[in-house]
Protein backbone atom coordinates (compact mmCIF):
# COMPACT_ATOMS: atom_id res chain seq x y z
CA UNK A 1 0.00 0.00 0.00
CA UNK A 2 2.64 2.52 1.03
CA UNK A 3 4.16 4.04 -2.03
CA UNK A 4 6.14 7.18 -1.41
CA UNK A 5 5.91 9.01 1.86
CA UNK A 6 4.85 12.63 1.59
CA UNK A 7 7.77 15.05 1.78
CA UNK A 8 7.66 18.41 3.50
CA UNK A 9 5.26 21.17 2.60
CA UNK A 10 3.96 21.12 -0.94
CA UNK A 11 5.94 23.43 -3.18
CA UNK A 12 4.06 26.14 -4.98
CA UNK A 13 3.12 24.51 -8.23
CA UNK A 14 3.94 26.00 -11.56
CA UNK A 15 1.18 26.34 -14.15
CA UNK A 16 0.33 22.92 -15.57
CA UNK A 17 2.54 21.92 -18.43
CA UNK A 18 2.06 18.79 -20.50
CA UNK A 19 3.05 16.56 -17.64
CA UNK A 20 0.85 16.53 -14.60
CA UNK A 21 2.45 18.04 -11.59
CA UNK A 22 2.43 15.66 -8.69
CA UNK A 23 2.40 16.99 -5.22
CA UNK A 24 2.92 14.77 -2.19
CA UNK A 25 -0.68 15.29 -1.14
CA UNK A 26 -1.73 13.59 -4.31
CA UNK A 27 -0.47 10.25 -3.10
CA UNK A 28 -1.56 10.64 0.47
CA UNK A 29 -5.03 11.94 -0.33
CA UNK A 30 -6.30 8.96 -2.36
CA UNK A 31 -4.83 6.65 0.28
CA UNK A 32 -6.97 8.31 2.90
CA UNK A 33 -9.98 8.48 0.59
CA UNK A 34 -9.98 4.73 0.12
CA UNK A 35 -8.84 3.84 3.63
CA UNK A 36 -12.29 3.25 5.15
CA UNK A 37 -13.45 1.17 2.21
CA UNK A 38 -10.19 -0.74 2.28
CA UNK A 39 -10.47 -1.66 5.95
CA UNK A 40 -14.10 -2.73 5.56
CA UNK A 41 -13.21 -4.71 2.46
CA UNK A 42 -10.40 -6.47 4.29
CA UNK A 43 -12.50 -7.24 7.37
CA UNK A 44 -15.77 -8.22 5.71
CA UNK A 45 -14.70 -9.75 2.39
CA UNK A 46 -11.11 -10.94 2.53
CA UNK A 47 -11.45 -11.97 6.17
CA UNK A 48 -14.58 -14.13 5.81
CA UNK A 49 -13.33 -15.47 2.47
CA UNK A 50 -10.09 -16.81 3.87
CA UNK A 51 -11.59 -17.76 7.21
CA UNK A 52 -14.31 -19.68 5.37
CA UNK A 53 -11.64 -21.55 3.46
CA UNK A 54 -10.01 -22.49 6.75
CA UNK A 55 -13.28 -23.42 8.47
CA UNK A 56 -14.15 -25.68 5.57
CA UNK A 57 -11.19 -27.82 6.62
CA UNK A 58 -12.31 -28.03 10.22
CA UNK A 59 -15.02 -29.29 12.44
CA UNK A 60 -16.43 -26.26 14.15
CA UNK A 61 -19.70 -25.77 16.00
CA UNK A 62 -19.21 -22.10 16.75
CA UNK A 63 -18.04 -22.63 20.31
CA UNK A 64 -14.58 -23.69 21.33
CA UNK A 65 -11.84 -24.01 18.77
CA UNK A 66 -12.16 -25.32 15.22
CA UNK A 67 -10.64 -28.76 14.92
CA UNK A 68 -8.64 -29.38 11.77
CA UNK A 69 -9.95 -32.39 9.86
CA UNK A 70 -8.44 -31.92 6.42
CA UNK A 71 -10.72 -32.56 3.48
CA UNK A 72 -13.27 -34.60 5.42
CA UNK A 73 -16.04 -32.02 4.90
CA UNK A 74 -15.51 -32.10 1.17
CA UNK A 75 -15.54 -35.88 1.13
CA UNK A 76 -18.84 -35.78 2.99
CA UNK A 77 -20.21 -33.37 0.38
CA UNK A 78 -19.79 -35.92 -2.38
CA UNK A 79 -22.16 -38.31 -0.64
CA UNK A 80 -24.65 -35.69 0.52
CA UNK A 81 -27.85 -36.07 -1.47
CA UNK A 82 -29.38 -32.87 -0.06
CA UNK A 83 -26.32 -30.97 -1.26
CA UNK A 84 -26.76 -32.28 -4.80
CA UNK A 85 -30.47 -31.60 -4.72
CA UNK A 86 -29.91 -28.03 -3.54
CA UNK A 87 -27.39 -27.39 -6.29
CA UNK A 88 -29.64 -28.91 -8.95
CA UNK A 89 -32.76 -27.02 -7.85
CA UNK A 90 -30.85 -23.72 -7.56
CA UNK A 91 -29.35 -24.15 -11.03
CA UNK A 92 -32.73 -25.19 -12.45
CA UNK A 93 -34.32 -22.12 -10.90
CA UNK A 94 -31.58 -19.90 -12.33
CA UNK A 95 -31.78 -21.39 -15.80
CA UNK A 96 -35.56 -20.92 -15.90
CA UNK A 97 -35.91 -17.63 -14.05
CA UNK A 98 -33.20 -15.59 -15.78
CA UNK A 99 -34.65 -15.86 -19.32
CA UNK A 100 -38.20 -15.25 -18.07
CA UNK A 101 -37.00 -12.23 -16.16
CA UNK A 102 -35.01 -10.97 -19.16
CA UNK A 103 -37.87 -11.28 -21.63
CA UNK A 104 -40.40 -9.75 -19.24
CA UNK A 105 -38.24 -6.75 -18.41
CA UNK A 106 -37.19 -6.11 -21.99
CA UNK A 107 -40.72 -6.57 -23.34
CA UNK A 108 -42.15 -4.17 -20.81
CA UNK A 109 -39.36 -1.66 -21.44
CA UNK A 110 -40.09 -1.80 -25.18
CA UNK A 111 -43.79 -1.18 -24.59
CA UNK A 112 -42.97 1.69 -22.24
CA UNK A 113 -40.64 3.40 -24.70
CA UNK A 114 -42.78 2.86 -27.79
CA UNK A 115 -44.40 6.03 -29.05
CA UNK A 116 -47.37 3.95 -30.18
CA UNK A 117 -48.68 3.05 -26.72
CA UNK A 118 -50.70 5.12 -24.28
CA UNK A 119 -50.84 5.28 -20.44
CA UNK A 120 -47.11 4.73 -20.33
CA UNK A 121 -46.27 6.77 -17.24
CA UNK A 122 -49.02 5.23 -15.13
CA UNK A 123 -48.03 1.75 -16.26
CA UNK A 124 -44.40 2.46 -15.49
CA UNK A 125 -45.25 3.28 -11.89
CA UNK A 126 -47.22 0.04 -11.56
CA UNK A 127 -44.37 -2.05 -12.91
CA UNK A 128 -41.98 -0.30 -10.58
CA UNK A 129 -43.91 -0.73 -7.33
CA UNK A 130 -42.58 -4.25 -6.60
CA UNK A 131 -39.11 -2.73 -6.27
CA UNK A 132 -40.26 -1.07 -3.06
CA UNK A 133 -41.37 -4.35 -1.55
CA UNK A 134 -38.99 -6.43 0.50
CA UNK A 135 -38.26 -10.04 -0.44
CA UNK A 136 -40.05 -11.20 2.71
CA UNK A 137 -43.23 -9.30 1.88
CA UNK A 138 -42.98 -10.45 -1.75
CA UNK A 139 -42.97 -14.00 -0.41
CA UNK A 140 -46.00 -13.23 1.75
CA UNK A 141 -47.92 -11.71 -1.18
CA UNK A 142 -47.36 -14.71 -3.44
CA UNK A 143 -47.99 -17.24 -0.72
CA UNK A 144 -51.31 -15.53 -0.16
CA UNK A 145 -52.13 -15.84 -3.87
CA UNK A 146 -51.02 -19.45 -4.28
CA UNK A 147 -52.09 -21.04 -1.00
CA UNK A 148 -53.30 -24.50 -1.87
CA UNK A 149 -56.35 -24.49 0.37
CA UNK A 150 -57.03 -20.82 0.78
CA UNK A 151 -55.38 -19.01 -2.13
CA UNK A 152 -57.16 -16.99 -4.74
CA UNK A 153 -55.62 -18.85 -7.67
CA UNK A 154 -57.02 -22.24 -6.69
CA UNK A 155 -60.36 -20.66 -5.83
CA UNK A 156 -60.56 -19.18 -9.33
CA UNK A 157 -59.43 -22.44 -10.94
CA UNK A 158 -62.14 -24.31 -9.09
CA UNK A 159 -64.76 -21.70 -9.86
CA UNK A 160 -63.92 -21.94 -13.56
CA UNK A 161 -64.56 -25.67 -13.43
CA UNK A 162 -60.93 -26.72 -13.34
CA UNK A 163 -59.23 -28.11 -10.30
CA UNK A 164 -56.92 -26.50 -7.83
CA UNK A 165 -53.23 -27.23 -8.30
CA UNK A 166 -50.81 -28.44 -5.66
CA UNK A 167 -48.79 -25.20 -5.55
CA UNK A 168 -47.36 -26.04 -2.15
CA UNK A 169 -46.99 -29.81 -2.16
CA UNK A 170 -45.71 -30.52 -5.66
CA UNK A 171 -42.07 -29.62 -6.17
CA UNK A 172 -42.16 -28.32 -9.73
CA UNK A 173 -45.30 -26.27 -9.19
CA UNK A 174 -43.78 -24.78 -6.06
CA UNK A 175 -40.70 -23.87 -8.09
CA UNK A 176 -42.91 -22.28 -10.74
CA UNK A 177 -44.45 -20.03 -8.08
CA UNK A 178 -40.97 -19.01 -6.94
CA UNK A 179 -40.09 -18.10 -10.54
CA UNK A 180 -43.27 -16.05 -10.92
CA UNK A 181 -42.68 -14.19 -7.67
CA UNK A 182 -39.03 -13.59 -8.49
CA UNK A 183 -39.88 -12.21 -11.91
CA UNK A 184 -42.56 -9.98 -10.47
CA UNK A 185 -40.12 -8.59 -7.93
CA UNK A 186 -37.08 -8.29 -10.18
CA UNK A 187 -38.60 -6.81 -13.32
CA UNK A 188 -38.84 -3.27 -11.95
CA UNK A 189 -35.17 -2.53 -11.73
CA UNK A 190 -34.16 -4.39 -14.88
CA UNK A 191 -36.90 -2.59 -16.77
CA UNK A 192 -35.36 0.74 -15.76
CA UNK A 193 -31.97 -0.38 -17.04
CA UNK A 194 -33.50 -1.33 -20.37
CA UNK A 195 -35.53 1.86 -20.64
CA UNK A 196 -32.39 3.92 -20.12
CA UNK A 197 -30.51 1.88 -22.71
CA UNK A 198 -33.36 2.04 -25.23
CA UNK A 199 -33.49 5.82 -24.94
CA UNK A 200 -29.83 5.96 -25.82
CA UNK A 201 -30.39 4.33 -29.18
CA UNK A 202 -30.49 7.09 -31.78
CA UNK A 203 -33.92 7.27 -33.38
CA UNK A 204 -32.31 7.92 -36.74
CA UNK A 205 -30.98 4.35 -36.92
CA UNK A 206 -34.44 2.89 -36.60
CA UNK A 207 -36.01 5.45 -38.91
CA UNK A 208 -33.42 4.85 -41.59
CA UNK A 209 -34.03 1.12 -41.39
CA UNK A 210 -37.75 1.68 -41.63
CA UNK A 211 -37.35 3.81 -44.72
CA UNK A 212 -35.25 1.04 -46.24
CA UNK A 213 -38.18 -1.28 -45.67
CA UNK A 214 -37.02 -3.23 -42.60
CA UNK A 215 -39.91 -4.81 -40.71
CA UNK A 216 -40.45 -4.20 -37.00
CA UNK A 217 -38.98 -7.62 -36.22
CA UNK A 218 -35.94 -6.93 -38.39
CA UNK A 219 -35.41 -3.56 -36.75
CA UNK A 220 -35.59 -5.17 -33.32
CA UNK A 221 -33.27 -8.08 -34.02
CA UNK A 222 -30.81 -6.30 -36.30
CA UNK A 223 -30.58 -2.92 -34.59
CA UNK A 224 -32.11 -2.68 -31.13
CA UNK A 225 -31.00 -6.00 -29.68
CA UNK A 226 -27.35 -5.73 -30.78
CA UNK A 227 -27.16 -2.20 -29.41
CA UNK A 228 -28.57 -3.41 -26.09
CA UNK A 229 -25.76 -5.91 -25.76
CA UNK A 230 -23.88 -4.26 -22.87
CA UNK A 231 -27.11 -3.89 -20.89
CA UNK A 232 -28.17 -7.42 -21.70
CA UNK A 233 -24.85 -8.68 -20.46
CA UNK A 234 -25.23 -6.82 -17.15
CA UNK A 235 -28.81 -7.98 -16.72
CA UNK A 236 -27.98 -11.61 -17.36
CA UNK A 237 -24.89 -11.59 -15.15
CA UNK A 238 -26.60 -9.82 -12.25
CA UNK A 239 -29.73 -11.94 -12.72
CA UNK A 240 -27.74 -15.16 -12.66
CA UNK A 241 -25.80 -14.22 -9.55
CA UNK A 242 -29.00 -13.01 -7.89
CA UNK A 243 -30.88 -16.20 -8.67
CA UNK A 244 -28.03 -18.39 -7.46
CA UNK A 245 -28.23 -16.75 -4.04
CA UNK A 246 -32.02 -16.53 -3.77
CA UNK A 247 -32.96 -16.93 -0.15
CA UNK A 248 -35.11 -14.35 1.65
CA UNK A 249 -38.11 -14.43 -0.67
CA UNK A 250 -38.28 -18.20 -0.64
CA UNK A 251 -38.09 -18.21 3.15
CA UNK A 252 -41.39 -16.39 3.31
CA UNK A 253 -42.94 -17.96 0.22
CA UNK A 254 -42.61 -21.66 0.94
CA UNK A 255 -39.46 -22.16 2.96
CA UNK A 256 -37.90 -24.21 0.18
CA UNK A 257 -40.74 -26.68 0.27
CA UNK A 258 -42.39 -29.01 -0.15
CA UNK A 259 -40.17 -30.47 2.54
CA UNK A 260 -36.63 -29.75 1.44
CA UNK A 261 -37.26 -30.32 -2.24
CA UNK A 262 -36.66 -26.72 -3.30
CA UNK A 263 -34.17 -25.84 -0.63
CA UNK A 264 -31.77 -23.60 -2.52
CA UNK A 265 -28.09 -23.60 -1.80
CA UNK A 266 -27.96 -20.49 0.40
CA UNK A 267 -30.78 -21.84 2.51
CA UNK A 268 -28.85 -25.07 2.87
CA UNK A 269 -25.80 -23.11 4.02
CA UNK A 270 -27.96 -21.24 6.50
CA UNK A 271 -29.59 -24.38 7.81
CA UNK A 272 -26.31 -26.26 8.15
CA UNK A 273 -24.32 -23.42 9.63
CA UNK A 274 -26.84 -21.76 11.89
CA UNK A 275 -29.62 -24.19 12.68
CA UNK A 276 -27.40 -27.25 12.95
CA UNK A 277 -24.34 -25.28 14.12
CA UNK A 278 -22.04 -27.12 11.74
CA UNK A 279 -20.00 -24.14 10.62
CA UNK A 280 -17.22 -26.28 9.19
CA UNK A 281 -19.51 -28.18 6.86
CA UNK A 282 -21.51 -25.06 5.97
CA UNK A 283 -18.24 -23.38 5.02
CA UNK A 284 -17.39 -26.25 2.71
CA UNK A 285 -20.74 -25.79 0.96
CA UNK A 286 -20.03 -22.05 0.82
CA UNK A 287 -16.71 -22.65 -0.88
CA UNK A 288 -18.36 -24.79 -3.54
CA UNK A 289 -20.98 -22.08 -4.17
CA UNK A 290 -18.23 -19.49 -4.37
CA UNK A 291 -16.42 -21.58 -6.94
CA UNK A 292 -19.60 -21.97 -8.99
CA UNK A 293 -20.21 -18.21 -8.94
CA UNK A 294 -16.65 -17.49 -9.99
CA UNK A 295 -16.95 -19.90 -12.90
CA UNK A 296 -20.27 -18.33 -13.95
CA UNK A 297 -18.90 -14.80 -13.71
CA UNK A 298 -15.71 -15.60 -15.59
CA UNK A 299 -17.45 -17.50 -18.36
CA UNK A 300 -19.97 -14.71 -18.85
CA UNK A 301 -17.14 -12.20 -18.86
CA UNK A 302 -15.55 -14.07 -21.72
CA UNK A 303 -18.57 -13.24 -23.80
CA UNK A 304 -18.58 -9.61 -22.97
CA UNK A 305 -15.92 -7.55 -21.33
CA UNK A 306 -16.53 -4.44 -19.39
CA UNK A 307 -14.64 -2.23 -21.76
CA UNK A 308 -13.92 0.69 -19.44
CA UNK A 309 -12.30 -1.42 -16.77
CA UNK A 310 -8.86 -0.30 -17.83
Amino acid at each position, binding site marked *: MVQDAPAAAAPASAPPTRRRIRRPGQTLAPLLFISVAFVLFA*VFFVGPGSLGMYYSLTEYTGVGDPEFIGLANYEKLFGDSQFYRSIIRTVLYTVLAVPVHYVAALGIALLLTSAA*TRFRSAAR*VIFFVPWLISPIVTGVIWRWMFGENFGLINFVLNALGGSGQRWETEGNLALAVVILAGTWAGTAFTMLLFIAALRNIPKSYLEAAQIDGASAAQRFFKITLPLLRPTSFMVILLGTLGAMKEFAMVQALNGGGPGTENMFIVQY*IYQTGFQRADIGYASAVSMVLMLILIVIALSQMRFDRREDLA
Partner: protein
Amino acid sequence: MRIRGVNIGLTVLLLVLAALFAFPMLWFLLSSFKPGSELFSLPLSLFPDNWTASGYETAWTRFDFWRYFANTGTVAVITTFFTVLVSAMTGYAFAKYKAWWLQAFFICILITTMLPTEVIMPSTFAIIRDLGLYNSLAGIIVPSIITATGIFMFRQYFRTVPDELLEAARIDGVGEFRAFFQIMLPIAKPIAVVLAIFSFQWRWNDYIWPLIVLNDPNKYTLQIALRSIVGADNIDWSVLLSASVISLIPMVILFVIFQRQIMSADINSGLKD
Protein backbone atom coordinates in the same frame (compact mmCIF):
# COMPACT_ATOMS: atom_id res chain seq x y z
CA MET B 1 -54.53 -1.55 -35.53
CA ARG B 2 -53.56 2.08 -35.30
CA ILE B 3 -55.71 5.07 -34.54
CA ARG B 4 -53.99 8.44 -34.83
CA GLY B 5 -50.59 6.91 -34.18
CA VAL B 6 -51.75 4.83 -31.23
CA ASN B 7 -51.30 1.11 -31.60
CA ILE B 8 -54.37 -0.35 -29.92
CA GLY B 9 -53.01 -3.89 -29.69
CA LEU B 10 -49.79 -2.83 -27.97
CA THR B 11 -51.63 -0.48 -25.63
CA VAL B 12 -54.00 -3.26 -24.60
CA LEU B 13 -51.04 -5.58 -24.05
CA LEU B 14 -49.37 -2.97 -21.88
CA LEU B 15 -52.51 -2.50 -19.81
CA VAL B 16 -53.05 -6.23 -19.39
CA LEU B 17 -49.48 -6.68 -18.20
CA ALA B 18 -49.81 -3.75 -15.82
CA ALA B 19 -53.00 -5.26 -14.44
CA LEU B 20 -51.25 -8.59 -13.94
CA PHE B 21 -48.46 -6.86 -12.06
CA ALA B 22 -50.81 -4.77 -9.95
CA PHE B 23 -53.17 -7.57 -9.06
CA PRO B 24 -51.17 -9.54 -6.42
CA MET B 25 -50.49 -6.26 -4.65
CA LEU B 26 -54.14 -5.22 -4.81
CA TRP B 27 -55.39 -8.57 -3.56
CA PHE B 28 -52.93 -8.45 -0.68
CA LEU B 29 -53.90 -4.89 0.22
CA LEU B 30 -57.65 -5.49 0.05
CA SER B 31 -57.37 -8.73 2.01
CA SER B 32 -55.64 -6.91 4.83
CA PHE B 33 -58.87 -4.98 5.40
CA LYS B 34 -61.01 -8.09 5.73
CA PRO B 35 -62.01 -9.44 9.12
CA GLY B 36 -60.28 -12.72 9.98
CA SER B 37 -63.47 -14.70 9.41
CA GLU B 38 -63.79 -13.40 5.87
CA LEU B 39 -60.26 -14.21 4.76
CA PHE B 40 -60.98 -17.86 4.09
CA SER B 41 -64.75 -17.94 3.59
CA LEU B 42 -65.80 -19.12 0.17
CA PRO B 43 -66.62 -17.70 -2.25
CA LEU B 44 -63.72 -15.30 -1.99
CA SER B 45 -64.56 -11.78 -2.97
CA LEU B 46 -62.19 -9.11 -4.16
CA PHE B 47 -63.48 -6.41 -1.86
CA PRO B 48 -64.10 -6.95 1.84
CA ASP B 49 -67.80 -7.28 2.77
CA ASN B 50 -67.06 -5.62 6.07
CA TRP B 51 -64.10 -3.27 5.91
CA THR B 52 -62.14 -3.45 9.11
CA ALA B 53 -58.77 -2.49 10.47
CA SER B 54 -58.90 -5.17 13.15
CA GLY B 55 -55.92 -7.01 11.69
CA TYR B 56 -53.94 -3.81 11.96
CA GLU B 57 -55.03 -3.27 15.54
CA THR B 58 -54.07 -6.81 16.52
CA ALA B 59 -50.76 -6.57 14.73
CA TRP B 60 -50.02 -3.25 16.33
CA THR B 61 -50.84 -4.42 19.86
CA ARG B 62 -49.26 -7.85 19.61
CA PHE B 63 -45.98 -6.64 18.14
CA ASP B 64 -43.82 -3.81 19.20
CA PHE B 65 -43.89 -2.05 15.84
CA TRP B 66 -42.53 1.23 17.12
CA ARG B 67 -39.44 -0.62 18.20
CA TYR B 68 -39.08 -2.43 14.88
CA PHE B 69 -39.52 0.81 13.00
CA ALA B 70 -36.98 2.51 15.23
CA ASN B 71 -34.47 -0.33 14.82
CA THR B 72 -34.91 -0.59 11.07
CA GLY B 73 -34.86 3.18 10.67
CA THR B 74 -31.71 3.52 12.75
CA VAL B 75 -29.93 0.91 10.67
CA ALA B 76 -31.15 2.31 7.36
CA VAL B 77 -30.33 5.95 8.09
CA ILE B 78 -26.91 5.44 9.67
CA THR B 79 -25.79 2.90 7.08
CA THR B 80 -27.01 5.11 4.25
CA PHE B 81 -25.09 8.11 5.57
CA PHE B 82 -21.84 6.15 5.71
CA THR B 83 -22.48 4.34 2.46
CA VAL B 84 -22.84 7.63 0.58
CA LEU B 85 -19.80 9.19 2.22
CA VAL B 86 -17.50 6.19 1.82
CA SER B 87 -18.68 5.47 -1.72
CA ALA B 88 -18.12 9.09 -2.72
CA MET B 89 -14.59 9.17 -1.28
CA THR B 90 -13.63 5.84 -2.75
CA GLY B 91 -15.22 6.47 -6.13
CA TYR B 92 -13.54 9.87 -6.25
CA ALA B 93 -10.13 8.36 -5.56
CA PHE B 94 -10.68 5.82 -8.34
CA ALA B 95 -11.77 8.51 -10.79
CA LYS B 96 -9.27 11.26 -10.15
CA TYR B 97 -6.03 9.66 -9.01
CA LYS B 98 -3.75 7.23 -10.76
CA ALA B 99 -1.76 4.54 -8.98
CA TRP B 100 -1.36 0.83 -9.41
CA TRP B 101 -2.78 0.14 -5.97
CA LEU B 102 -5.91 2.13 -6.77
CA GLN B 103 -6.36 0.07 -9.90
CA ALA B 104 -5.85 -3.16 -7.97
CA PHE B 105 -8.28 -2.16 -5.24
CA PHE B 106 -10.85 -1.15 -7.82
CA ILE B 107 -10.73 -4.62 -9.32
CA CYS B 108 -11.11 -6.11 -5.82
CA ILE B 109 -14.23 -4.00 -5.32
CA LEU B 110 -15.66 -5.16 -8.64
CA ILE B 111 -15.05 -8.77 -7.63
CA THR B 112 -17.17 -8.31 -4.51
CA THR B 113 -20.23 -7.96 -6.75
CA MET B 114 -19.52 -11.50 -7.90
CA LEU B 115 -19.10 -12.81 -4.39
CA PRO B 116 -22.10 -11.81 -2.36
CA THR B 117 -22.15 -11.96 1.40
CA GLU B 118 -24.52 -14.88 1.42
CA VAL B 119 -21.74 -17.06 0.11
CA ILE B 120 -19.51 -16.49 3.09
CA MET B 121 -22.27 -16.25 5.68
CA PRO B 122 -20.85 -18.68 8.29
CA SER B 123 -17.40 -17.12 8.48
CA THR B 124 -18.76 -13.58 8.31
CA PHE B 125 -20.87 -14.45 11.30
CA ALA B 126 -17.77 -15.60 13.17
CA ILE B 127 -16.02 -12.31 12.41
CA ILE B 128 -18.96 -10.22 13.54
CA ARG B 129 -19.10 -12.22 16.73
CA ASP B 130 -15.38 -11.89 17.38
CA LEU B 131 -15.58 -8.13 16.85
CA GLY B 132 -18.16 -8.05 19.63
CA LEU B 133 -20.90 -6.91 17.24
CA TYR B 134 -23.17 -9.92 17.65
CA ASN B 135 -26.73 -9.04 18.60
CA SER B 136 -26.20 -5.32 18.07
CA LEU B 137 -27.47 -2.96 15.41
CA ALA B 138 -23.85 -1.99 14.75
CA GLY B 139 -23.32 -5.57 13.61
CA ILE B 140 -25.74 -4.90 10.76
CA ILE B 141 -24.53 -1.39 9.99
CA VAL B 142 -20.77 -1.78 9.78
CA PRO B 143 -20.56 -4.68 7.31
CA SER B 144 -23.18 -3.12 5.04
CA ILE B 145 -21.40 0.19 4.47
CA ILE B 146 -19.34 -0.65 1.41
CA THR B 147 -21.18 -1.48 -1.78
CA ALA B 148 -19.55 -1.95 -5.12
CA THR B 149 -22.58 -0.37 -6.78
CA GLY B 150 -22.23 2.85 -4.82
CA ILE B 151 -18.49 3.12 -5.39
CA PHE B 152 -18.96 2.39 -9.07
CA MET B 153 -21.71 5.00 -9.43
CA PHE B 154 -19.52 7.72 -7.96
CA ARG B 155 -16.48 6.64 -9.94
CA GLN B 156 -18.40 6.88 -13.19
CA TYR B 157 -19.83 10.24 -12.23
CA PHE B 158 -16.54 11.81 -11.16
CA ARG B 159 -14.91 10.63 -14.36
CA THR B 160 -17.29 12.93 -16.23
CA VAL B 161 -16.18 15.92 -14.14
CA PRO B 162 -13.35 17.65 -16.06
CA ASP B 163 -9.89 17.26 -14.55
CA GLU B 164 -9.30 20.94 -15.24
CA LEU B 165 -11.63 21.80 -12.39
CA LEU B 166 -9.42 19.94 -9.96
CA GLU B 167 -6.22 21.30 -11.51
CA ALA B 168 -7.53 24.83 -11.22
CA ALA B 169 -8.35 24.31 -7.57
CA ARG B 170 -4.86 22.95 -6.95
CA ILE B 171 -3.28 25.94 -8.63
CA ASP B 172 -5.31 28.17 -6.36
CA GLY B 173 -3.75 26.35 -3.46
CA VAL B 174 -6.82 24.36 -2.47
CA GLY B 175 -5.83 21.16 -0.66
CA GLU B 176 -6.94 17.74 -1.85
CA PHE B 177 -9.48 17.30 0.93
CA ARG B 178 -11.03 20.73 0.60
CA ALA B 179 -11.23 20.17 -3.14
CA PHE B 180 -13.18 17.01 -2.50
CA PHE B 181 -15.50 18.18 0.23
CA GLN B 182 -16.13 21.71 -1.01
CA ILE B 183 -16.02 21.35 -4.78
CA MET B 184 -16.47 17.76 -5.88
CA LEU B 185 -18.93 16.40 -3.35
CA PRO B 186 -21.45 19.22 -3.93
CA ILE B 187 -21.22 18.63 -7.69
CA ALA B 188 -22.06 14.97 -7.14
CA LYS B 189 -25.22 15.68 -5.20
CA PRO B 190 -27.54 14.04 -7.75
CA ILE B 191 -25.62 10.78 -7.46
CA ALA B 192 -25.55 11.07 -3.68
CA VAL B 193 -29.34 11.41 -3.63
CA VAL B 194 -29.84 8.41 -5.87
CA LEU B 195 -27.44 6.24 -3.91
CA ALA B 196 -29.06 7.35 -0.65
CA ILE B 197 -32.47 6.24 -1.92
CA PHE B 198 -31.08 2.91 -3.09
CA SER B 199 -29.15 2.33 0.09
CA PHE B 200 -32.18 3.13 2.21
CA GLN B 201 -34.23 0.64 0.24
CA TRP B 202 -31.55 -2.06 0.50
CA ARG B 203 -31.22 -1.63 4.25
CA TRP B 204 -34.92 -1.25 4.97
CA ASN B 205 -35.64 -4.50 3.17
CA ASP B 206 -32.51 -6.31 4.24
CA TYR B 207 -33.00 -9.77 5.61
CA ILE B 208 -29.85 -11.80 5.75
CA TRP B 209 -27.66 -9.59 7.95
CA PRO B 210 -30.26 -8.99 10.62
CA LEU B 211 -31.11 -12.69 10.50
CA ILE B 212 -27.64 -13.86 11.35
CA VAL B 213 -26.62 -10.98 13.61
CA LEU B 214 -29.68 -10.37 15.78
CA ASN B 215 -30.88 -12.69 18.47
CA ASP B 216 -32.76 -10.49 20.92
CA PRO B 217 -36.36 -9.78 19.76
CA ASN B 218 -36.01 -6.26 21.11
CA LYS B 219 -33.42 -5.61 18.42
CA TYR B 220 -35.38 -7.14 15.56
CA THR B 221 -35.82 -5.22 12.37
CA LEU B 222 -39.15 -5.26 10.55
CA GLN B 223 -38.16 -8.00 8.13
CA ILE B 224 -37.07 -10.34 10.91
CA ALA B 225 -40.25 -9.62 12.84
CA LEU B 226 -42.31 -10.44 9.73
CA ARG B 227 -40.34 -13.59 9.24
CA SER B 228 -41.21 -14.68 12.76
CA ILE B 229 -44.92 -14.30 11.92
CA VAL B 230 -44.72 -16.11 8.59
CA GLY B 231 -42.49 -18.83 10.02
CA ALA B 232 -44.97 -19.81 12.73
CA ASP B 233 -46.64 -23.22 12.50
CA ASN B 234 -50.07 -21.67 12.27
CA ILE B 235 -49.81 -18.46 10.35
CA ASP B 236 -52.13 -15.74 11.59
CA TRP B 237 -52.88 -14.35 8.15
CA SER B 238 -54.91 -11.44 9.37
CA VAL B 239 -51.96 -10.20 11.41
CA LEU B 240 -49.39 -11.16 8.78
CA LEU B 241 -51.09 -9.22 5.98
CA SER B 242 -51.58 -6.11 8.08
CA ALA B 243 -48.07 -6.23 9.50
CA SER B 244 -46.65 -6.59 5.99
CA VAL B 245 -48.60 -3.59 4.75
CA ILE B 246 -47.41 -1.54 7.71
CA SER B 247 -43.80 -2.41 6.91
CA LEU B 248 -44.19 -0.99 3.39
CA ILE B 249 -45.37 2.46 4.41
CA PRO B 250 -41.96 4.17 4.72
CA MET B 251 -40.85 2.86 1.32
CA VAL B 252 -44.06 4.10 -0.28
CA ILE B 253 -43.56 7.54 1.24
CA LEU B 254 -39.97 7.57 0.02
CA PHE B 255 -41.13 6.65 -3.45
CA VAL B 256 -43.79 9.34 -3.56
CA ILE B 257 -41.26 11.98 -2.57
CA PHE B 258 -38.41 10.86 -4.81
CA GLN B 259 -40.30 9.30 -7.68
CA ARG B 260 -38.67 11.54 -10.24
CA GLN B 261 -35.13 10.77 -9.09
CA ILE B 262 -35.80 7.05 -8.78
CA MET B 263 -37.37 6.64 -12.18
CA SER B 264 -35.24 9.08 -14.15
CA ALA B 265 -33.16 7.54 -16.84
CA ASP B 266 -29.72 8.65 -15.71
CA ILE B 267 -30.10 6.98 -12.33
CA ASN B 268 -28.70 3.92 -13.90
CA SER B 269 -25.56 5.54 -15.18
CA GLY B 270 -23.62 3.73 -12.50
CA LEU B 271 -24.83 0.26 -13.26
CA LYS B 272 -25.34 0.67 -16.93
CA ASP B 273 -21.72 0.95 -17.94
